[in-house]
């Protein structure tokens, strides 16, 4: 059965898109058909990491939501761009970066039912094994929907007070929406922090497992938004950490 995985963070700047791209790529490298949807309509960005030129990609998630195209027509094959070799396939549905399109989303919104139907159509039409949803930060109807339909919800947080509190709110929402499996990922952890202690403290505070801890890394920052880290540096400790999170998503 296909699995839907939502990646969310309560606040912006947690490295959510980078995390989603790396995680989806890691899963695709195991030989699966993986789709990624950028539902961050007000501030899209994940297409940059997959090096997709939106000038050459006329159809987007927006086109689908406005009834201009079926959602499959907005899915682009980024397998090679992500550096995935072998059996796996990686498909991306980007959101439009045109100011007019973003303004239209902000002004008129869209029917959240369509998003649900689109996800299902995408999984069915493209025969996906996994669908990753890159969400807009904060809580909105779209986030609620993504959480409600997910088999796995990954919440990314940084070790600071604002993230801690916001994550607690999101956890309450996720539990109310009966999410099946909830994983936490800590990003931008200072190297001075004791990782085991940090993991233990966060797990205790939220009552959910920490699937991975990612250090604040200059290497990632340098490469940020340009190519997928885990295929460029497959043996790096960060890539291994992504593998750890990926196996927790794939199990069960």
């Amino acid at each position, binding site marked *: *059965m*296909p*699995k*839907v995985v939502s990646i969310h963070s309560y606040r912006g700047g947690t490295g959510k898109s980078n995390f989603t791209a790396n995680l989806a790529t890691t899963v695709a490298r195991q030989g699966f058909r993986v789709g990624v949807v950028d539902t961050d309509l007000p501030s899209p960005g994940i297409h940059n990491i997959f090096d997709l030129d939106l000038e050459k990609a006329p159809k987007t998630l927006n086109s689908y939501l406005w009834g201009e195209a079926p959602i499959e027509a907005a899915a682009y094959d980024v397998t090679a761009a992500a550096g995935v070799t072998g059996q796996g396939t990686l498909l991306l549905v980007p959101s439009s970066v045109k100011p007019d399109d973003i303004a239209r989303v902000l002004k008129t919104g869209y029917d*959240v*039912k369509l998003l*649900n*139907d689109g996800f*299902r159509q995408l*999984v069915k039409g493209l025969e996906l094994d996994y669908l990753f949803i890159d969400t807009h930060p904060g809580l909105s*109807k779209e986030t*609620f*929907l993504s959480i*409600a*339909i*997910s*088999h796995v919800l990954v919440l990314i947080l940084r070790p600071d007070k604002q993230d801690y509190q916001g994550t607690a709110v999101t956890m*309450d*929402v996720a539990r*109310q*929406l*009966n*999410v*099946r499996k909830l994983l936490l990922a800590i990003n931008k952890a200072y190297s001075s922090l004791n990782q085991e202690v940090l993991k233990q403290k966060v797990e205790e505070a939220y009552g959910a497992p920490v699937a991975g801890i990612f250090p604040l890394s200059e290497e990632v920052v340098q490469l940020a938004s340009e190519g997928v880290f885990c295929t460029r540096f497959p043996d790096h400790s960060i890539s291994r950490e992504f593998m750890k999170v990926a196996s927790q998503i794939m199990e069960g």
Partner: protein
Amino acid sequence: MGNGEFSSLASSIQAVASPFRQYLQDLHGKYGAVNEGAVADYIPELALADPNWFGICVVTTGGQVFEVGDCDKLFTIQSISKAFVYGLALEDHGRDYVNSKVSVEPTGEAFNAIVLDEATNRPYNPMVNAGAIATADLIKGDSATDRLKRLLAMFKRYTGRDHDVNVPVFLSEKATGFRNRAMAYLMLNFGMVTERIDETLDLYFQQCSIMVNGKDLAMMAATLANGGVNPVTGERALDERYVQDVVSVMLTCGMYDYSGEWVYRVGMAAKSGVGGGITAVVPGRLGIGTFSPPLDAKGNSYRGIKVCEDLSRDFGLHLFNVARAEHVLEDWLQGSGADGW
């Protein structure tokens, strides 16, 4: 957590993502592709309907709302109004008096037949035109305006929103309703309606021209299924004592001269209208509203009937069903969005 606004948003999102809505979505795809039946054209305004319009809405007695397709598209309620106006007449006069003016026997005749019970001169039931005109005559009010306002207020209690009369449709119905006028005068001749006949006919044509959408029809049915209380607003729309009266005549007479076959196949109390709407009640559980303008030969929405047949069969919603259904409704309603991929 647990405050009202949050729970209500969470519940609406769960309804969007639920396996039951997915089921309705599949049903919509299955019958949306079928082009059977013809749009009503006895008045030009109705002929303007797009045969592709198609909405399915289900509202549970717990207040969950499941919508697929054109559920916000407005259309005229037509004969569906008859069941609800009958409820108001019962509230205005009580059962005995209303029964003395309108019987509750199915006719097997067409909805516009000019026929009265020979022994009592009563029209056969409140769902045929003659019975509906006699019922409209019973609606209390100081003036024509007052009576119409009482009807509109009643529909608001059922749906939770304001309603208007479509004036072009009303005027067309009025200009072409010779048969209805003839029936009214026949009943006047037998003393079954009062002398304010033109006012009552106007009220009848107006009640048929009230604008509703598929969601309204589901909400109205869910209100009856919920004992007369709107499950979302909590407002009472109909005196508890008369819910069974209204639901009974819907069951036996609601689908024109298809009513017998309808009860046999689908087994729900329902009322259809030539505008393309059907409202169907599953007491204690849910209300269904469908909207699709093409009608079959009996004047019922072709796709609407198919949708109700499937829902009845797959979830065991037939009134007299005791067999185990393929799907357990409660599981599908409450299931998580992660099910059924």
